[in-house]
């Protein structure tokens, strides 16, 4: 596979721009670190090299043809230069190339320095995925989290330190737009996500392609908070070739306690009576060491006959101590039916319009019944949200909680193989009957 890494050249002459230069290719990089963001198509590449500088002006050329590097982001920094021997006099972007720059670096004395070059590149992304193996009685699950790095940058990154950033970063310009001339077009974020989803099918990683660096155990991923972000640092180094994806295990926890709650909540889970598995990202649930980045959660159920697929949820970012609710769809063993048991009008108000008397105000009285039946052999929790519109009164002996000004919430536990009926009345005033309190 062709390696298109940026090239670094140092001029031997302390020469002005127009003078003829003698350029030499510099030694290989000492190291490279990729900091990959998941909220934007952005990767911060940090490479270190050891260079020799003459006293006076040194001209350092950095070029990156056929890559997706943002030219405005390329920075030079001397490491461990406490005496301030090196100073960047200027950065020149020659007219003839969009993919090259030249640093003029003044050295007070001849010396060898380790230098760091950083830049943004587009085309590398990462995503999180989770697999939950739910116990047959749904009381707990074994949760495994993965991170997958996708490389479509056009570059091979060999033996790179990999850091993954969890968080939503603010960018005012897309790196891809800065990296590419207007004529060529790269994948947008959505296309990249689509590609990343399919990537494991297109390019299965095989042995010998950096598939673990000869380690017999999965690599550790260290997690640390920084400002509003979490940085996942993958142990050791990784080789990530262009057009390849690589999946690593982030963590694995057995026996995460689960709560099964059946919800009727159209605003959150749609119009169906939905089975939702709930847990918290906290210590009680054997989690809570770090937030869970947004990603797909796939649930499987263990049973005597094998493993069955329960469903999947595109989860949003889950903060430490926050709760997680995974909808697994409707359950034929737990049913809900709503009936309108009665309907009546009262308090009709009339208005004279010419020769006609017309209704200008009225009030409706409706009685509803919701019956929930649990055919399962275990107790379940139920939460029902019921909304009403307009100027209304909501009345029920089942003591619902006020969710908001037009929604009531019923919560109860339902024993195995039992049912419960909720009854409520809604009185709604229309026209002139609408109250002013």
């Amino acid at each position: 596979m062709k390696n298109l890494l940026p090239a670094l050249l140092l001029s031997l002459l302390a020469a002005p721009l127009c003078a003829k230069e003698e350029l030499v290719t510099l030694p290989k990089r000492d190291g490279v670190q990729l900091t990959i963001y998941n909220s934007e198509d952005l990767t911060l590449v940090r490479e270190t090299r050891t260079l020799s500088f003459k006293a006076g002006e040194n001209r350092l050329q950095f070029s990156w043809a056929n890559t997706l590097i943002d030219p405005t982001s390329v920075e030079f920094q001397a490491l461990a230069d406490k005496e301030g021997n090196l100073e960047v006099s200027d950065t020149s972007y020659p007219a003839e190339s969009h993919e090259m720059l030249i640093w003029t670096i003044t050295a007070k004395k001849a010396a060898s320095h380790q230098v760091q070059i950083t830049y943004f590149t587009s085309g590398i992304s990462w995503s999180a995925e989770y697999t939950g193996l739910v116990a047959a009685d749904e009381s707990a699950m074994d949760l495994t989290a993965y991170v997958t790095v996708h490389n479509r940058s056009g570059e091979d990154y060999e033996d790179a330190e990999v850091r993954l950033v969890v968080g939503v970063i603010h960018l005012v310009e897309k790196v891809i737009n800065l990296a590419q001339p207007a004529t060529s077009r790269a994948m947008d974020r959505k296309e990249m996500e689509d590609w990343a989803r399919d990537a494991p099918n297109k390019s299965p990683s095989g042995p010998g392609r950096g598939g673990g660096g000869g380690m017999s155990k999965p690599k550790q991923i260290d997690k640390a908070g920084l400002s509003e972000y979490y940085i996942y640092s993958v142990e050791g180094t990784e080789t990530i070739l262009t057009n390849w994806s690589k999946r690593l295990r982030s963590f694995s926890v057995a026996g995460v306690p689960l709560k099964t709650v059946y919800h009727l909540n159209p605003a959150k889970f749609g119009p169906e009576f939905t089975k939702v598995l709930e847990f918290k990202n906290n210590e009680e649930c054997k989690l809570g060491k770090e937030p869970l980045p947004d990603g797909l959660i796939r649930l499987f159920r263990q049973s005597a006959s094998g493993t069955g697929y329960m469903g999947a949820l595109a989860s949003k970012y889950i903060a430490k101590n926050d709760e997680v609710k995974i909808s697994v769809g409707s359950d034929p063993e737990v049913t809900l039916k709503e009936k309108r048991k009665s309907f009546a009008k009262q308090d009709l108000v009339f208005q004279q319009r010419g020769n006609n008397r017309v209704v200008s105000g009225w009030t409706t009285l409706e009685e509803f019944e919701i019956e929930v039946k649990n055919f399962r052999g275990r107790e379940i929790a139920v939460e029902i949200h019921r909304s009403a519109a307009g100027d209304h009164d909501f009345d029920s002996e089942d003591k619902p909680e006020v969710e908001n000004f037009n929604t009531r919430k019923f919560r109860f536990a339902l024993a195995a193989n039992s049912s419960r009926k909720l009854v409520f009345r809604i009185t709604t005033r229309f026209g002139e009957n609408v109250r002013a309190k």
Partner: protein
Amino acid sequence: MKLRLFAAALPTALACAIIGLSSPTPAEARIKLATLPDREAVAVRFDHPNQVLVEEERTIALQAGVNNIDFSWAGTNIDKGSIVFRPAAADSKVEILSTSYPPGENALTWAVSSPDARSEKFRISYLMGNIQRETSYQAMVSKDETTCSFKHYFKIRNWSGESFAEADFITRDGKKFEKALSQGEAKRVLVNKWDNVKIKKEYVYDLTRQYEGKVLTDYVLVNSKDIGLGQIPLEFGKVRIYQDDGKGTAAFTGEDWGRFTPIGDEMRLNIGTAQDIKVEFKKMVNDVTNRRGNVYDTDELDQYEIKNFKDSEVILTLVLRVDGEWEMMKDASGFESFERMDNETVKFRVKCPPKGAPVLLKFHYQRKDVW
């Protein structure tokens, strides 16, 4: 004609000054080419926010009497009306008598009177187009997010058609750097660097900035000497923010446009979203009151449930809007401070305990005379 051919033959389209020794008519003078004095100094000034002024000095040998000096250019975008020509010395005995503009040419001729034969230094200045400038900043924020080093870069892209072998480039705040800059080339220079600049981090839920219910993370720095700045107004430009990760490297934590910030004013930079602070809105009361025909008041209670999942307490600023005529009720609760920023906009500061303990901001208000 000779002159124009000569100018066009230059590798880059330099503006050139040519002196005619003495002549009764400008046309004749332009034929009597004597010298092409070199530029001794060139300054490219960016004082104006939109225009670039080039100022050059040339020493011209004059004869006693009237001298005609030709100035022509090709391939550059010089504003002809902006050209100013004067002796460099304030007490010069030389006088500029007139300026003539030949038809259809990028050229002009000055008639200059000199009391004797002498070498005189002249200053020529003009506005030149197609020189772009760009200001950018880089903030390296400390691990504890209380200070940063703030670097100020100035970048020039030269599309003017002229190459500057050596010129002084002078920024709006008077910073001068001497560089060569070819046609088409861009150059970026670090012009200022301030260390230990104090910054303030703020969490903001602002419905005037975004409608998705996200909490934004801002850094606020005041352009004042108190915090380590305050020396120059800060030009509009992109600010890229990095943070020391405590492991010897830095992570990029976001970027924003920094608006033009005069001395004493504040620059607010959004770095991203604070995902560990969640705000859930519920309208708990929405009643009609005091109905009078088709006119009524409303009684509204907007509840914001805030959960801060961080390990430490934070202060969240909520900027909310209510349209029309309204007043806040006395039983509004859950906030440390309240400010009515304008008729429609209110700002609450809410103390949020750590580890997800919910806090309720109850914004109770009454709208008046709605129809």
